[in-house]
């Protein structure tokens, strides 16, 4: 199997090039993932786009000044341009009537076009070192070399120090800005810190994923993480994990087939995680669907159980075995539903099948009694406490009987005493 061989070789770290790219991308992914949580919760996700586009002229100037593609110069240039962009957005929205989103769009396009012009000038300058500079547009992970790793490492270390250090600041200021101010937290400082984190992670990120996909690397992992946890710390860790896994996947895919670009595959992996989360997380669409189908099943089996018991209740012979026809005669249920219901009861050990006959087990009788008891108690409750006529209470009790918990039932019994009959003068069954 070629695939397994490739996989083993890939993770054996024998190839320095692969190792450089892999570690660079992992550092980058994790950094962007955890910064993303702050960005999304700060509700200014668009600023990432402004920063990433604005970094281009900075990188170009960094190159013009140094004449070589040294990561220190390029990233320093990028960071300075990023800071200018953040200030520009702030300044425009504060001093003019232009709103923040428009200010972001203006800054983004102005800075980016300046960057593209610079890029053109450099490309026609005849400097042979410039080849590959345009990779910043779409990103090219394969260009990561050992020197880049040192810069990435320093930047990641910086981010990984700031976030734990100011953890409480971030949490309180992002959740409740007004409250944070009243306990003496400097909101401008926190906002500046978040902008700084965005600029740093963007500056190291665009070499790999490019200017255009940069915001996805920051926003998507955080957005996916919120599906899985209700805890601030955990969402930071999960977001970092998602981004790291996607980075590994992206690098691995482009290693398997060298025509495949790394950056876009990182983003595709991230998006797959996001889609998966949207469907299969505890709050996901598919999970909701499963819940709904479980509920339907529960209603079905409860109802069949009730009917089986009630036939017997009429004749005072609850343990007697019944044919399917008898059950259908008592209350019509579509045949396939009835069969599903009976099958469910059998698997739960509430009913057994003997030939073509069905009968309740002891457990089944007690469960049937419980459901009917709740139904009838609830009817009484509605009549007594909610002033609802006795001919209007049945419908509501039909659903309540399936969802009442033992605690609530105990409370209900305490409230009602132990009444003998329901509003329709039917006997309320209790355990003997």
């Amino acid at each position, binding site marked *: 199997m070629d695939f397994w061989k490739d996989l083993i070789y890939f993770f054996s770290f024998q190839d320095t090039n692969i190792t450089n790219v892999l570690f660079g991308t992992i550092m980058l992914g994790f950094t962007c993932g955890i910064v993303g949580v702050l960005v999304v919760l700060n509700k200014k996700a668009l600023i990432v786009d402004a920063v990433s586009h604005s970094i281009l002229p900075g990188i170009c100037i960094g190159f013009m000044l140094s004449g070589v593609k040294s990561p220190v110069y390029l990233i320093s240039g990028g960071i300075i341009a990023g800071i200018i962009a953040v200030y520009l957005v702030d300044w425009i929205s504060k001093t003019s009537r232009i709103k923040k989103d428009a200010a972001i769009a203006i800054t983004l396009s102005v800075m980016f076009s300046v960057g593209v012009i610079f890029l053109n000038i450099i490309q026609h300058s005849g400097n042979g070192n410039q080849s590959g500079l345009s990779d910043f547009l779409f990103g090219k992970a394969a260009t990561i070399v050992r020197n880049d790793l040192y810069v990435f490492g320093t930047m990641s270390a910086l981010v990984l120090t700031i976030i734990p250090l100011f953890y409480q600041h971030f949490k309180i200021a992002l959740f409740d800005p007004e409250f944070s*101010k009243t306990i003496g937290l400097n909101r401008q400082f926190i906002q500046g810190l978040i902008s700084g984190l965005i600029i740093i992670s963007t500056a190291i990120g665009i070499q790999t994923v490019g200017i255009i996909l940069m915001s996805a690397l920051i926003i998507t992992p955080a957005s996916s993480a919120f599906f899985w946890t209700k805890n601030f710390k955990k969402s930071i860790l999960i977001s970092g994990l998602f981004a790291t896994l996607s980075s590994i996947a992206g690098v691995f895919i482009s290693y398997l087939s060298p025509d495949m670009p790394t950056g876009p595959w990182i983003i595709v992996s991230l998006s797959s995680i996001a889609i998966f989360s949207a469907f299969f997380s505890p709050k996901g669409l598919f999970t909701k669907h499963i819940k709904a189908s479980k509920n339907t099943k529960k209603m079905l089996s409860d109802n069949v159980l009730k009917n089986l018991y009630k036939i017997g209740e009429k004749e005072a012979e609850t343990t007697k075995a019944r044919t399917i026809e008898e059950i259908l005669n008592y209350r019509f249920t579509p045949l396939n539903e009835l069969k599903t219901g009976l099958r469910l009861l059998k698997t739960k050990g509430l009913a057994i099948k003997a030939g073509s006959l069905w009968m309740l087990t002891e457990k089944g009788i007690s469960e049937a009694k419980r459901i009917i008891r709740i139904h009838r108690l609830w009817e009484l409750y509605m009549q007594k406490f909610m002033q609802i006529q006795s001919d209007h209470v049945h419908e509501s009790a039909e659903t309540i009987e399936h969802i009442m918990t033992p605690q609530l039932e105990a409370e209900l019994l305490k409230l009602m005493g132990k009444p003998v009959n329901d509003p329709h003068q039917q006997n309320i069954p209790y355990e003997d």
Partner: protein
Amino acid sequence: MIKQVKNPIVEVHDLTVAYDNKPVLWNADFSIPKGKMVGIVGPNGAGKSTLLKAIMGLIPIASGFSKILNENLKQVRHKVAYVPQKESVDWDFPTTVLDVVEMGRYGKKSLFKRLNREDKQIAVEALKKVKMLDFADRHISELSGGQQQRVFIARALAQEAEIYFMDEPFSGVDMASEKAIVDILLQLQEDGKTIFVVHHDLQSAMDYFDWMIFLNTRIVASGPLSEVFTTEILQNTYGGNLSMLEQIGQIYKEKQFPIRES
């Protein structure tokens, strides 16, 4: 009628607040004695929340000042707790009920420190007081409006302050929560705390408060309930705006004229 007191716990002096250079609160000047339950009432747009926010340093002040315990807010921050309107935060934020209440402990503590056992105990006690201990580990998005409000109040309790400023704690709140909140406020007052509450409903205001501030872009009255709850003051508060103030405010805005000469 504005009753000034000696040794006030909160003193507001000629406070004017403007949004976009248009004054929305004119020359507020009053003083409140310690240990009162103070209701701030007035029509919509009267500047009730603005007054609270200005005292708490959340919005810039055009002129005047306020003093708490005869000090600037900065010196006494840890003795003051503020409960914002619950609509001012995003309740989808990834955090639990107990987490939010524990935030209150950072009013007295450096944000770089971890909470110790005593802090956590105080937070739990605060949750118990608002009858929300069963919800401690719930995500805050799972709460009803009244429960959210109670969590906010628990956070303020965890601050163990001397003075409490609450912005509309009774709005959008169910009966059980309202009752729970009133009980807590009474308990706080019994413990000698001073409480300011922005309130909407005049009917219940009579039952809850022993000091009232009537507000309609200017202070109409401030004093003990029995002295200020009069037909005349109610009419002045609710009987239409002073159109002169409105017009002059508009001119301030259009000309972007300085609110004070210096």
